[in-house]
């Protein structure tokens, strides 16, 4: 993860352009183009191969943007439906970037539509059977600390404004740069920065009593 303190808009890599950033990603991009072409000819299997390739990515992105898991799943499903419906409008160069935009839009639309509806944020995180991934040499105390930190952070993230959460998740978690977030969310660069700044201040305010979890 880049340190945002040392980065600027132009320096940070664009997540939407990642497929062409590394050799493996270039191969994935070529595969995507072939699958898109086959899907456009009516091959549902080809489109479902694209779904298989990107459903984890879309799920992890949207699940962080939409606190309610059922709503998040609906948004991801709607994103794939929308991608299938509008596949003819895809113009490249990155199917991944195009699909990500659709997923972010689906998440934002859903949050706008259900803005005032109270939700239970990330109930899966309360499930003790699921724990964050840890290395083999990680001791139980570290695992427990990471789980607690994740729970607290997720709860705080769910409590801030949706537009601030979207900007923070896209920048701090997903690694998009300011310009890409501006394109994804349809706002100006200054608005993106402002949302990130205010969102971080809001997070700090919500986590003020639990900051010891993060200072280790």
């Amino acid at each position: 993860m880049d340190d945002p303190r040392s980065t600027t808009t132009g320096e940070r890599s664009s997540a939407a352009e990642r497929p062409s950033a590394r050799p493996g990603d270039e191969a994935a991009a070529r595969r995507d183009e072939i699958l898109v072409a086959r899907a456009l000819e009516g091959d549902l299997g080809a489109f479902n191969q694209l779904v298989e390739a990107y459903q984890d990515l879309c799920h992890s992105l949207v699940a962080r943007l939409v606190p309610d898991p059922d709503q998040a799943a609906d948004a991801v499903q709607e994103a794939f439906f929308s991608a299938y419906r509008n596949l003819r409008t895809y113009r490249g160069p990155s199917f991944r970037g195009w699909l990500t935009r659709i997923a972010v839009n689906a998440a934002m639309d859903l949050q706008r539509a259900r803005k005032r509806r109270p939700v239970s944020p990330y109930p899966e995180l309360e499930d003790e059977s699921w724990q964050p991934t840890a290395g083999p040499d990680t001791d139980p105390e570290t695992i427990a600390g990471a789980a607690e930190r994740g729970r607290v952070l997720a709860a705080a993230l769910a409590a801030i404004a949706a537009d601030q959460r979207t900007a923070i998740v896209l920048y701090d978690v997903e690694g998009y740069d300011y310009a890409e977030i501006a394109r994804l969310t349809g706002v100006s660069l200054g608005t993106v920065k402002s949302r990130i700044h205010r969102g971080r201040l809001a997070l700090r305010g919500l986590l003020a009593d639990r900051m010891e979890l993060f200072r280790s």
Partner: protein
Amino acid sequence: MPLASHTPAAEAADHAELIVALDAGDLAGPDLDRARALSASCAGCAALVVDLAAIRGALPALPVPPRRRDYRLTDEDAARFRPTGWRRALGWLAAPGSTVRPLATGLATLGVVGLLLTAGLPGFGGGAAMAPVDTERVEAPAAGGAAQGDEYTMTGPAPAPTGAPAPVSTAAPAPGASGAPDGAGPAVAAPGEPSPDASAERNVTAGAPDDAGDAKLGETAAATGDGLPVGLLVSLALLASGIALFVARALARGRLA
């Protein structure tokens, strides 16, 4: 500075905004110097810097709830979302690689060029084509014989028995007549009106098999009953079609976006 910023709360908020912008690396110039000075001199600001860095560091490790749904489309989904009817048309209009855009551009260009040729620029011959009927020339051959009548048929409108200009049912001839001398318009005998020259009347109404008659018939066929030349109408239609395709494509793209 607004007055509100002098209150302690506003000042603290201002400081916090400076510090968070400093933490994000979004400051430059005097603001950067001011934020650095604040973080060095103000304990609360220094603590904020540390906390923001800790939160930033923790965010990438934010856990993700496990995926519990397979998002692959079923055959029923595909059938439901497969474009049919008007959605297929929308898809064709909005598709980035479709032929709509070049087609619309071509139609609009043809329409504009056609308009220029038929009705617009004199340099293109359109000015001659649209020139008003020369009534003086109409009267000149009226006293002539059969040979003059033939010539008159080619170049001028049929005269009325009284010498007044004959009613002209066409405003302009077809583009092929644009080179006519003196910009003369087409000659069409008014129905029911006697022609002073029998041969002229024969050429106009019965369609004599000579060149003059052919040209006349061509001019007559190239005009509409309203007096608008077909070329002009076709050009307008092409231009309208091109613009309509552009608009339809924009609407389709907006709808599918």
